[in-house]
């Protein structure tokens, strides 16, 4: 975690950063516990660490509160703190599990995939696939369940300076199993995404985080309030005919994850870049995410304030997304 002074300052300014929570040695302590005692040993340490941060870190509570106060709007006091503890604990377990896969091998966790046949049919359309996820569960674990598709996987992601969380392949000391497209690269990586889809490949994006310029967002409802979601992926789907496959992962047991095909969004050929044109598709995604949050309230790990501030006249403010442009890191990565 950040130092207390930085903690206070960040909490006050409301700045959000995707940088890792925790210092390097603290992460190393968890890795050591995994090596010595496996997943359960790391969980034991986690219970204590999470309790400490929930009680004493204003920043941790503030980051969790953006989501929690929308998901549990009536909650106050100790119950609010309990929700915060549950959410951060779930998140910590996901980070531990991710390290477990890298250190002990993929067989340490069981990943169940729903809708295998449907995914094969979508692949066989030969238009590529946009696999759209969100900051839920552990998408890295889920990636290992996509091998059966036998298509190269491209991941739109960028790691911020100061991010010390390791991806599972870094723990394992193997090459990155997917091609990384940098959203801050040439034209936001759009040409690379188009090229990959034209070759029938898979492109993975996060539907709950901005990918390109801040012009490319549309307002939709999530948990009863407006959020601004990117629509670039739907535009690319429209240009290529690729289906947008919304898949959401969740931890459904001590050592198991489930990869759920939540929605297949079909975007017809649409002209122009008017946000309104793409609102129905972004709304389909947000509805799927909303349903997920209702069913699994402690598995949405988006620790920044994605909800638009409301003005007294009820008009949303224009918000700059520069601080988190193109990130997949909200913490759950």
């Amino acid at each position, binding site marked *: 975690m950040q130092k207390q002074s930085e903690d206070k300052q960040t909490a006050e300014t409301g700045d959000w950063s995707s940088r890792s929570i925790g210092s390097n040695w603290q992460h190393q302590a968890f890795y050591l516990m995994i090596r010595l005692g496996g997943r359960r040993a790391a969980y034991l340490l986690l219970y204590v660490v999470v309790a400490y941060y929930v009680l004493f870190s204003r920043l941790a509570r503030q980051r969790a509160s953006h989501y929690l106060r929308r998901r549990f709007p009536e909650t106050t006091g100790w119950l609010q703190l309990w929700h915060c503890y549950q959410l951060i604990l779930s998140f910590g377990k996901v980070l531990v599990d991710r390290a477990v896969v890298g250190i002990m091998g993929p067989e340490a966790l069981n990943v169940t995939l729903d809708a295998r046949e449907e995914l094969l049919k979508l692949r066989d359309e030969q238009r590529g696939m946009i696999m759209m996820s969100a900051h839920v569960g552990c998408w890295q674990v889920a990636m290992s369940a996509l091998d059966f598709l036998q298509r190269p996987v491209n991941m739109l992601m960028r790691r911020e300076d100061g991010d010390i969380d390791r991806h599972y392949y870094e723990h394992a000391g193997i090459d990155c199993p997917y091609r990384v497209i940098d959203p801050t690269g*040439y*034209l*936001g990586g759009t040409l690379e995404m*188009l090229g990959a889809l034209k070759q029938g490949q898979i492109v993975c994006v996060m539907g709950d985080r901005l990918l*390109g310029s801040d*012009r490319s967002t549309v307002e939709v409802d999530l948990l009863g309030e407006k959020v601004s979601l990117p629509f670039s992926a739907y535009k690319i789907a429209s*240009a290529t005919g690729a289906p947008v496959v919304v898949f959401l992962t969740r931890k459904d047991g001590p050592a198991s994850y489930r990869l759920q095909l939540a929605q297949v969004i079909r975007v017809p050929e649409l*002209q122009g*870049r008017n946000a309104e044109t793409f609102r129905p598709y972004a709304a389909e995604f947000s509805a799927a995410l909303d349903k997920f949050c209702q069913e699994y309230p402690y598995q949405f790990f988006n620790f920044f304030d994605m909800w638009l501030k409301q003005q007294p006249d009820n008009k949303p403010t224009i918000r700059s997304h520069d601080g988190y442009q193109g990130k997949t890191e909200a913490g759950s990565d």
Partner: protein
Amino acid sequence: MDIKAKLKQVLIEELNLEDLTPEEIEDDAQLFGEGLGLDSLDAVELVVVIQKHFGVEIKDMEEGRPALQSIDSLAAFIEDKQQG
């Protein structure tokens, strides 16, 4: 109408650059960033309209990056593909 003139017309119509006239678009002006000020989403649209109006496909980054620099480079790319 030559390729460059048609390109300019297509850009104005399809990318909603109505405040520009074909004469105001320089042949060597950058399409993205400074210059015409197009962005990543316009790039997607541009790939689509190039295929639609000129029957030329920009398949990947290797082809697209040099081609999408300016009207000059894009016209040369289209001409090359149409002749090839």
